[in-house]
């Protein structure tokens, strides 16, 4: 019983959950930290190796995004057609959060709204903090362009490279558009920001 209680305390210890530990990927040797589940270099290489080029979502063809020099080199070696773009950090975006922990159960939750009231039973672990959601794995990024993509075709991009505001909230948060519908102009994608805007949700 005591052991279980100690184990629970250890599991919910904020320091044990937030401490960053660097891991070296056993497959590619790339270092990454324990806050992400998988080596991102391997993740993007898997996207390059994924032969399914005609995946569809909501009847739209899905355009693959790859990030990092290694994945881009691998894609070029495979002869894939790429639209290379620089992934830039923009200071315009900010999302706030606060981490609190229940004093009795040890449950840790992340809240994002100033109005979210928590009584004495919740202890503040991380006070209101803004994070920038436009920090990327690498500044090198590219869309994989299907060979048969026609000018004017409407597509879905699950990982948008360029920076667009998807919504502003009156508590100061400015959201970055991460997923969007887009139209291929023949040279670039016209990003349809309204398709996944976050100020207003319908569905």
């Amino acid at each position, binding site marked *: 019983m005591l052991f279980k209680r100690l184990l629970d305390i250890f599991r919910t210890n904020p320091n044990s959950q937030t401490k960053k530990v660097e891991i070296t990927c056993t497959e590619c040797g790339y270092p990454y930290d324990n806050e992400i589940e998988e080596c991102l270099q391997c993740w993007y290489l898997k996207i390059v190796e994924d032969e399914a080029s005609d995946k569809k979502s909501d009847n739209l063809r899905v355009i693959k995004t790859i990030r990092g020099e290694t994945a881009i080199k691998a894609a070029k070696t495979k002869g894939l057609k790429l639209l290379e773009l620089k992934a830039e950090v923009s200071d315009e975006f900010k999302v706030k959060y606060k981490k609190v922990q229940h004093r009795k159960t040890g449950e840790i939750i992340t809240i994002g709204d100033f109005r979210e009231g928590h009584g004495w039973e919740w202890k503040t672990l991380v006070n209101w903090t803004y994070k920038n959601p436009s920090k990327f794995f690498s500044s090198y990024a590219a869309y994989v362009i299907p060979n048969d993509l026609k000018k004017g075709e409407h597509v879905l991009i699950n990982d948008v490279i360029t920076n667009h505001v998807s919504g502003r909230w009156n508590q100061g948060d400015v959201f970055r558009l991460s997923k969007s519908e887009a139209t291929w102009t023949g040279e670039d994608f016209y990003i349809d920001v309204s398709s996944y805007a976050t100020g207003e949700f319908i*569905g």
Partner: protein
Amino acid sequence: MKINPSNKELYTDSGAFLKRLHCPISVMWKDMSENGSNTRMCSGCEKTIHDTEHLSDAELEHLLANDPQACLKVNLNQDNVKIFH
């Protein structure tokens, strides 16, 4: 109610899951025609969209219990919505 803007999942204040908001048609609320005091008609699918701004959690639960496919509109700036991540 509470919404997670990254996955668009909607919950009651007490944490009960209501619905994941998703629409492939992309018609904006301002472009829909009013067909009731708190509802509008979507020109893309001809369904009625319910404005959640004046609905309580209990009213939303009742609405979705009767019609789980009911379409909702949530604006981040409305007073009865809290955001969580």
